[in-house]
């Protein structure tokens, strides 16, 4: 059984972050790449709350940073998914190989 302490919380966050990294580097569809970024953000948010609980005690600065982080994540998701939809409308394909050949024109 794992102890509920800072070291185990941070280890969990590192594992979740690296899982997201793996998805970011290996998945091909743009939606899945954005989803992997969300997994990485989840790992980072976890460290904020864990540090706040185990180290900072008196103030909720970590919780505040978490709120800023999900604000940025919401904006990122809105813009990224909007770009994905435009990309799909123009090229009928959302693979990252197609995205790296934007200069070749539509369809």
């Amino acid at each position, binding site marked *: *059984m794992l*102890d*509920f*302490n*800072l*070291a*185990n*919380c*941070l*280890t*969990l966050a590192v*594992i*979740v972050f*690296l*899982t*997201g990294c*793996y998805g970011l*580097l*290996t*998945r*091909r*569809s743009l*939606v*899945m790449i*954005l*989803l*992997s970024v*969300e*997994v990485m953000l*989840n790992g980072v948010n976890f460290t904020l*709350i864990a540090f*706040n*609980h185990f*180290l*900072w*005690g*008196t103030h*909720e600065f*970590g*919780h*505040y940073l978490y*709120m*800023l982080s999900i*604000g*940025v*994540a*919401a*904006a*990122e*998701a*809105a*813009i990224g*998914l*909007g770009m*994905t*939809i*435009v990309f*799909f409308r*123009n090229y009928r394909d*959302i693979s990252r190989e197609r995205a790296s050949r934007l200069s070749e024109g539509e369809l």
Partner: protein
Amino acid sequence: MSEVDLYNGLFSACAILIVVFSLMVVLARNPVRSTLLLIMSFLPTSLVYVMLKAPFVGILQVLVYAGAIMMLFTFVVMMVNPRPEEGELGHLRGADPVGTRLVHWNVLGALAVAGVVLVTLVRKAAESLPVGAEHPAEFGELSSISRMIFENPMENPLTVSFELISFLVLVGIIAAINFSRRDPSQKKGTP
């Protein structure tokens, strides 16, 4: 069963669930399934947040993250309807399968090395830190967080930065609407 044992057991179960669901998000071939699995991985995360004396953040995780942002993802996945096999690196059309598999293993190896180094460093650092902070009675609740952000607003830097985030989201909305607008010079009916 003491409270410490209960927390350890709950944390172990949640940690396993989070890691398994996150891995399944990355490995699932069907994007719809990935999105729903990510929502599933947020639920144990929010339980751990509650255990970390952050109940309001746990609620935000479920309401905002799992409820709003992930629904946005689900809608987009259903709109663009990517083919399930598109997510797999090893199934590139017209690509050398041995080469892509090699890239796959290289990424995995690099991440494993990074993971071992990071976990060692992080655990060593965490053991040297002065852990065991005392928490006030209302720690992590909405009243305490809002007092920290909005108390004495003229001199509190947190108030300004918190309000600025709303501008960031507004800019995000305007940009997303602008992206989705069709070019008026284009003929109707053409994609």
